[in-house]
């Protein structure tokens, strides 16, 4: 498996999902070689980890040069980097403007130190990672199938397939359409598309994502399986953290970006507060729409009841879930969305948008269209005031979580693998 990050060093949901999946695979006695650009040494030793930064590349291998040639187009000094906040972006552009001269110098030196992050020379790292993938595929023969997670590792997956001739599974956790709406970043889209078409089979984290893959990337439906995410731990968390305010709390937690639909949460909050002023709304997270949200909250004159926490980490995230009475995820486009499941683990009732993958697996949640702020306000009000429904959600949520285990996901993946291998041979 080619991934990009692995716990505990993660900055997104991708690492968490890989962790869960690997854990599930181990449970089913599958041998996994997991490659990441950079290992930190404190990963849980559950599988055969390969640190791409340690791989020595045989630069004389002619096949590699042809792979590299196909990849160099990625090197076009691209400013289009996903996952970057404004400050990081500033740093990145500074870097791109001042330091791009070093790009080619180390290409065929034997090792390459990956940062394994999402910034700076991301495209360069993706290309380097592909070469490393090819080297690993040449060095080792103890694998039957290649599994690449998201576009960052697709070039590595493709290269490994070219060298080894073994089947490739492309795992799509998110597409460029989820990240950027309709204004897609063309190089990223191209890599995604190439990966999907080179793959023998595709796993999508939801039906929603499968539809995107079929519609936007021109992949035939039979080539795509839905493989929903799960929760690492299905136990209910009993937090000892007490909230210090008397009002009930309604929470949004996530990146404050277009994809997550924060503006619908703000508008719905106003509608709820008009009816019941004894509620506090919290928007936890950071992102490019943060300032616009603050402006809007001030304009609606509800800043004494609507709070911003900035980016939360560690225990604060758990505390936030624990003191919330309702959790809202109004995502405009969410391939899966694991955070509502975390909320359920804290016994917090959730409202999720129909445009999220998690809506396909979570029954005990109120589902609304992301744009339907009236429905969102209604649902929030109901969960805050009508004890019966929120109590029911709490009771059933526990049961529901038990169905959402990574073991089940891994079992499904194993059958997918078996089918692929059967058709190959």
């Amino acid at each position, binding site marked *: 498996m080619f991934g990009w990050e692995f716990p505990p060093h993660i900055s997104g949901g991708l690492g968490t999902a890989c962790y869960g999946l690997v854990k599930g695979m181990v449970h089913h006695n599958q041998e996994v070689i997991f490659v990441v650009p950079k290992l930190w040494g404190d990963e849980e030793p559950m599988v055969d980890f390969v640190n791409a930064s340690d791989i020595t590349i045989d630069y004389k291998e002619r096949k590699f040069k042809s792979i590299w040639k196909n990849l160099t187009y990625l090197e076009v000094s691209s400013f289009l980097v996903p996952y970057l906040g404004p400050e990081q972006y500033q740093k990145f552009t500074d870097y791109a403007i001042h330091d791009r001269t070093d790009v080619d110098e180390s290409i065929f030196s034997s090792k390459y130190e990956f940062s394994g992050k999402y910034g700076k020379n991301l495209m360069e790292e993706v290309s380097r990672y592909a070469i490393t993938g090819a080297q690993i595929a040449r060095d080792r023969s103890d694998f039957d199938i290649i599994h690449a997670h998201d576009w960052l590792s697709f070039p590595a997956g493709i290269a490994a397939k070219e060298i080894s001739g073994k089947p490739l599974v492309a795992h799509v956790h998110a597409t460029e359409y989820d990240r950027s709406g309709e204004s897609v970043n063309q190089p990223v889209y191209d890599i995604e598309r190439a990966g999907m078409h080179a793959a023998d089979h595709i796993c999508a984290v939801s039906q929603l994502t499968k539809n995107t893959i079929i519609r936007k990337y021109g992949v035939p439906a039979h080539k795509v399986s839905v493989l929903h995410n799960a929760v690492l731990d299905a136990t209910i968390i009993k937090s000892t953290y007490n*909230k*210090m*305010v*008397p009002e009930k709390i309604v929470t949004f937690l996530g990146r404050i970006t277009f994809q997550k639909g924060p503006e619908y949460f703000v508008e719905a909050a106003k509608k709820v507060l008009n009816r019941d002023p004894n509620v*506090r709304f*919290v928007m*936890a997270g950071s992102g490019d729409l*943060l*300032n616009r949200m*603050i*402006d809007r*909250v*001030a*304009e609606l*004159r509800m*800043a*004494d*009841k609507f*709070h*911003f*926490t*900035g980016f939360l980490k560690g225990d*604060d995230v758990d*505390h936030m879930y624990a003191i919330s009475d309702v959790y809202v995820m109004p995502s405009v486009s969410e391939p899966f969305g694991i955070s509502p499941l975390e909320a359920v683990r804290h016994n917090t009732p959730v409202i999720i948008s129909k445009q999220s993958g998690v809506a396909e697996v979570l029954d005990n949640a109120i589902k609304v269209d992301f744009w339907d702020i009236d429905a969102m306000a209604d649902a929030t009000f109901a969960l805050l005031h009508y004890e019966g429904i929120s109590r029911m959600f709490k009771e059933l949520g526990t049961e529901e979580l038990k169905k959402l285990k990574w073991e089940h996901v891994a079992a499904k993946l194993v059958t997918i693998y078996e089918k692929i291998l059967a058709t190959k041979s």
Partner: protein
Amino acid sequence: MRTICFYFQVHQPFRLKPYRFFDIGEDHHYWDDFSNKSIMRKVAQKCYLPMNALLLELIYKYNGAFKVSFSMSGVFLDQMQAYAPDVLESFQKLVATGNVELLDETYGHSLVTLKSKEAFKTTVTKHTKKIQELFNGYTPKIFRNTELIYSDEIGAMIADMGYEATLTEGAKHILGWKSPNYMYVNSINPNLKVLLKNFQLSDDIAFRFGNKTWADYPLTTDKFVKWISAVPAEEEVINLFMDYETFGEHQWAETGIFEFMRYLPEAVLSQTNFKFSTPSEVVANAKAVGKIHVPIPISWADEERDLTAWLGNDLQDEAFEKLYEMESLVKNCDDPEINRDWNYLQTSDHFYYMCTKFFSDGDIHSYFSPYNSPYDAFINYMNVLSDFKLRLKQQAKQKEAKA
């Protein structure tokens, strides 16, 4: 009689510490003690102590011919007591010479004049008491509103409190062809005299002094004296109003600002027919030439000389509204800590930090702000306000229970 009237605003806000959502309901201490103390100490060393020493020296040297006036906000007085008793002592020495006048203002250096007459009276009375307590019973006779904010109505309110005069900006748009170098009266209540800042000459010292790109750089006492001599002979009063922190803090000692002030009295007294007066002396001796009409509030801030540094964008207006919604709750509360925080929270600087006017330029607003952005300032302030409101409600409940 021709005279120069020096007035210095001395103010330091109580800055808020980073106050998080999780702190609401739990942590009732809002103030960044460390940064407040270190800023107070820094400005004391760079400005208050050396400048007070210089003024004292000049007063003795010219045997009473040199005079100045101060208004010190209550929040400054509190911080001086807590962090800089040496500065307090030097101010007390200055006031004891009898050549230094103190003016009254709102305790919290607040914008309350725009909101509530009743709260205004309470906070001014508190300030008067504080001045009396620290300066041997001294009772100010002249009022100076926060950042020289003034309008006809504010003037009438000040007159109702019994003050003889007030100070404000000689803003171009209210003066028109008129000169700031005369004394005027309030248009509603002519008993209140109004002294107007000569912003040209004041800002030459306060803002342009150390600016090397300014055509008149460097500003020498000779040059400055030439300029005031050029003022038409019939114009009587030149009001030089500025932040006290001009000396040594906004204009560093290296610019020569202290030397400029050291030689200015000598040059003025020997080369011109100007004297130095305190505002009270101006009011007693000068003749008012007419009413000044200010229907819409003005201030001494920014090029616009209006209120937009503190109010006007949604962040500021929302915070301001939510703050004064609590006025009635505070009124019924006798908890000393709540009353203290109420004054500190009203300080105009909190709203200044939320100003988005100069977003792109990165200018003096950001120089004076402890926050990265107006949005950060807003979030932090609203979190604190939420906790403050909870405390008020709790107090009210307890009171009810007792009754």
